[in-house]
Every structure is written in C-alpha cells, then in structure tokens.
C-alpha cells in the first residue's frame, strides 16, 4: 500500500532514486573540479568572472537535485529499480547501431550504408516480411536523394568512392 507521499509523487517510482543519486553524485563531482576547470580573473567583477556561470549551473544542480533527492519518498533501491536500470541499458544496443552507421558512412558511402542499415535494423526489430524490407530500402533511397541530392546537406563522399572512374566518382561524391 503506497503512502500518501508516494501516491502524490509525479511519475513512476521505478528508477527515480537511481537517477537522482547519479545526478547529484555527478553534480558534486563536477562542482569539486571548479577550481581546476575554471579560472578566477583578478580585477574583474563577480558577474564577469569565467567561473560565475558554471558555478551557477553546478550550484543549481547540486542544490535543487539534492533537495529533490532529500524529499523523495523512497530511501532504498528495490528490484524494480534494478529492472529499470536494465531497461536503460537495453537502448545502448541502438546507440551502438547508430554509432556503427556513423563510422561506416565516411568509409563506404551514405547511400550504400543507408541501404544496408535500414533493412538490417528493420530485420532486427522483427519485421521479416519482404514488403517491410523493401519499404525500408525505398525509405533509405528516398532519404539519401532528398537530403544529399536535393537539400545538399554536408555529408562527405566515402573513401571507397575514390576508386570509381572520373565522372561517376564526382557524381557519387556530390549526390550519393
């Protein structure tokens, strides 16, 4: 049976204590480094000091985060918190997928990597029907054509494009 304080807490219980503890710990750690990571300039007003705004930010983080932690209705980490922590760890897999995509684009090229990345991740997410896989390939081509071809966003040509013959090489570097 939750207490009145728990009942009135905005948001789910799971993971709140871990997040607040981590937030306050990091804030204190960063605040402890303020002497070495910022400078105090002589003959300068307080508001013009380079240290002033990091101190405001970190002071606010420690103070408000600390009070938030203090007023939290829970004091113990339960198995629900640990399960939530695992749930957070699960998204690291997708962060790795994203980083792999980032690393491969300058090597293999925006179009080929996107055309492989989209169906692979679609497959990983459990869509095995050919319709969905073709749809993902179509979406990949559309994204590359729209952003690099039409909107000319700055995505460099791949290292592999260097091996292509003259005119084709320029076309691939510029548009794909």
């Amino acid at each position, binding site marked *: 049976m939750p207490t009145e304080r728990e009942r009135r807490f905005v948001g789910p219980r799971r993971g*709140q204590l871990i997040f607040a503890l981590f937030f306050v710990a990091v804030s204190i750690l960063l605040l402890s480094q303020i002497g070495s990571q910022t400078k105090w300039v002589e003959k300068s007003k307080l508001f013009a000091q380079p240290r002033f705004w990091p101190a405001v*930010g970190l002071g606010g*983080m420690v103070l408000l985060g600390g009070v938030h932690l203090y007023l939290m209705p829970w004091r113990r980490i339960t198995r629900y918190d640990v399960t939530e922590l695992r749930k957070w760890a699960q998204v690291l897999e*997708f962060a790795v997928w994203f980083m792999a995509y980032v690393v491969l684009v300058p090597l293999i090229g925006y179009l080929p990597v996107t055309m492989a990345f989209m169906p692979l991740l679609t497959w990983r997410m459990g869509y095995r029907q050919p319709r969905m896989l073709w749809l993902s390939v179509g979406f990949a081509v559309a994204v590359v054509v729209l952003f690099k071809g039409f909107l000319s966003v700055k995505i460099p040509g791949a290292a592999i494009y260097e091996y292509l013959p003259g005119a084709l090489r320029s076309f691939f570097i510029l548009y794909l």
Partner: protein
Amino acid sequence: MDLLQSALEILMRWDVALALLAGSVGGVLIGAIPGVGPAVAIAILLPATFSMDPIVGLTVLLGIYGSSMYGGAIPAILINTPGTAVNALTTYDGYPMTARGEPRRALSLAYSASFFGGMFSVICLILFAPVLAKVAPLFGSREIFLAALLGIILVIVAHRGQSLIAGALAAFGIFIQSIGLEPVKYTSRYTFDQPFLSSGINLIVVVLGLFALSQAFVLLTSEDEKIRMTRLRGGLFQGLRELGRHPRVATVSASFGVMMGMIPGVGEFTAQFMSYTYAQRTSKRPQDFGNGSSEGLIAAETANNAVPAAAMVPLLALGIPGEALTAMMLSVFYVHNVVPGPGLFQNDMPFVVALYIALLILNILVLIFLLFATKSLIQVVRIPNRFLGVCILTLSFVGVYSLRNSATDCVMAALFGVLGYILKRLSLPSVPIILGMVLGGIMEVKLRAGMARVKEPLDFIDRPVAFLLFVAILLVLASHFRRVIRERADLRAAERGVQKSSHRFGNMLGRRRQIFLKDRFKRVRARHAKRLSKFKDLF
C-alpha cells in the same frame, strides 16, 4: 500599407512558396503520426535549413510547428492517441464523439477551430506589431536578462510537482552551455584538456539527442500497437458552420492562446487548460465536457493553434525563446547572422510581417489540404512503432552528422539520446535542459553587459520595464512558494489523517452546492443515456 507591400515582396518567391507547401503538408503528416511530433522533425531538419535563406528556412520550420497540431488532432479523435503532446486535451471530447459515431463532425470541428485559432492569433499579432516595435526598444541588456530569467523561472514552476528536478535540469542546461572557451577572457571552462570540448557543446547536438534520438529509442523498445480505424464518410465542411455557433468560446480560447503564447515558458498547455476551464464554466451543458462536447473540442483546439504565432513574439522582439521549438528556430537566425531582438523590429519590420503573413497563408493551405486529403492521410497512423523508430534513427544521423561531419558530435548526441530516453521513462521533462542552454547563454551575455553600467545593485532595476519584470519575477516566485507551502501542509494533514472539513459557513454552503450539483449531473446523465438507448433502439 507600405509595410505590407514590402512583406509581400519578401514572400513572392518560388522557394518560399515551396517551403510553405512543404512545411504545411509535412507538418500535418508529422503531426498525424503518433510518436514523431514537431520537435523531432524540426530537430532533424534544422541543419538542412542552414543552407537556405532565413525566410525560407524559417517558413519550413514554422510550417511544421504551426500545422503539426492540425494533424495531431486526427489520431487524437480517431484512435484516442494524441498525435502531438498538445493534442492530449483533444482526446477528451474528440474521441467520445468518434465513439458515438460522429468522427466526421469531430474532425471538421477540430480543423475549423484550429483554423480559427491560427488565423486569429496571426491577425492579432499583425495588428499588434507596430506596438511591439515601439515597446521592443525599451528592452536593453538588463531587461532582456530579467525577461530570460523570468522565462526560465516560468518553465521551472510550470512543472507542477516536479519543479525541483526541472530546476536542476535547467541548471544542467546552464552548465553545459558554459562548457568550452569563454568568449571574453578566453579561458577554458570544463574542457578537461579535451580539444573537442573547446568549442563547447552544440545546441543542435543536444536537441537532436534529447528529442529525436531519445524518441527513436523509445519507439524501438516499445511494442507495435494494434489500431482499429474508424471509417470516415462524407465531407468535412460542417465544422465551419458549427464553429459559428460558438463565437464566444472560440474567441476567448484564441485570446488565451495568444496571451499565453507570448509569455516565455508558458505555452500551449496552460492556454488549453485556461480556455477549457473557461468554456466548461460558462457552458450551458458543463456535464457534456469530457463526453464529446463540441465546446470542449473548440476550446482545446483553438487555444493550442493560437500559440505558435504568439510564441514568435518573445523570440523576434527580444531574442528570447519561450519553448524548445522556438529555441531551435533561434539557431536558424544565428546561422544567418540575423540577430532577433529589438533591432529586428526597428530595422527589419517587413521581415517580421512576412513571417506572420507566411503563417496566415500556411493556415489556409493546411485547412484546404485537410478538407480534401483527410481520408488518405489517416493511413499514416498505421505505420508500426518500431519501424518508425528505425526511420527516426536514420534521419537523426543526417541532422547530427551534417552539422560538422564530426563523429564526436554523434557520440554526444547518442549520449544525450540515452539521457532523453531515461527522462522519458521517468516522466521527467527535457525542455528545461534546452531552455537552460539557450537562456543561460543569453543571460550570461546580457548580465555582463548590464552590470558594466551599474554602480549600485538597485540601479539594475531603476528603469520602468526592468522594475516591472523584477516585480513579475518576485510575484511568480511568491505564488509558487505559496502553492508549495500549501501542498506541503495538505500532505502533512493527509498523512496525519486528521484532515477535517472547514466549518466556515461559506465553505459548508459550497460543499452543499457541489453535492447538489453532483446529484443533478447524475440525473442529467441518466436522462441522456436513456434517450440515447431509445434512439439506438430505433435503428
């Protein structure tokens, strides 16, 4: 008249017309897909707009911002899932209308109300622009600092029950904007001798991480939902007629939207809440609210669509964004060396009016598009969640990588994506981080400039606007602390279990009235249910 002509000249270009069309249609589509929202779309498209003219880039982004709420009403009404967060209130009255077989009426009413809200706010602001042009120069460094401080305080206190952690997250935003080389004394701050931190943490990297990547992670780890779609038959023009029957509710709601939109950090939710409460209190049928009331739907949709144009006021007049979306738009100005603020209103008024006219045209385009394309458009609701996550992850790459072609930026965006995911899981707000970053940077510059001319601390508020802003800050803080103290006392009383009803005569009468009203409401509902069942029996 000359001003209007100059503004129209700015807009008379094929690329602006294309931007208007792309922004309006794209915004509606994005709004109609639950789980995407304008913040994700704007974050992804932001770097792509840097290569465009400011008016073209801003028109696309404004188009998405202004039209996404039109689209967001579609899933809110048809499947009880708001397309964007601000359409949550639309589900209260929109979905019950669908449930009783009136989806067409609900949609047409939502479109008409949204159109009215959008047009009303733009016309108000075009008329209001000359006044703004006179008021804006009264804002110097001190006033802008105080307005930014007021904005950040309003954002924090707006998160009821979470103001402490919202404040801590805003402070986190202020801290991360201070990382890097300090621009006046050229000393490094929290770089840990890492070269990639010397230029600081880019706002767009944080925005993309917190909004786009985190949303992709949420979708990728969620289950696909089975959607039962209601069939839509007939035209969608009847809403315009029905809206005409409630001019008071529509006008007051739109006015709330305009007023709340102009105050930094307040926005759609407060406007909706106020207009919905007003509509319910003044309605002849308050019992229908939440059960498919046309007035409730009008109040919710008019108020939220009146906000985007109004939200541009603090951004254009003072250079202070009031919410995450306008904060993102600020970076478009900076990239093109256009500094929004009092100078813009004084020197480039046609540009400001052109933006408002663009919004006006946009509302007309969206309404026409929706009246004819809704039946086909509702199919986008069927896109599976996890596939949508894959698409957003792929699109996020364009946003982050095209900024500086830096893999480090992508790592940072991924880290902020994980942070955004955790915040979403915990129902904690991520907007204070963005506003802390943007307003923190503004406050740093303006405080330094303002204090340079101040001898005594009280001189800081010796100008009328500065004094008014200072008083407003004190009032907001006082009312917040009063509310917090009340809530604490209420909590203690509830914990002790000794909470007693007041014996004051007025309170006793009030309670008696409520009891009476409740019983009366029950009778009215029973009567209506009886009539409905009789009506169903007929068929």
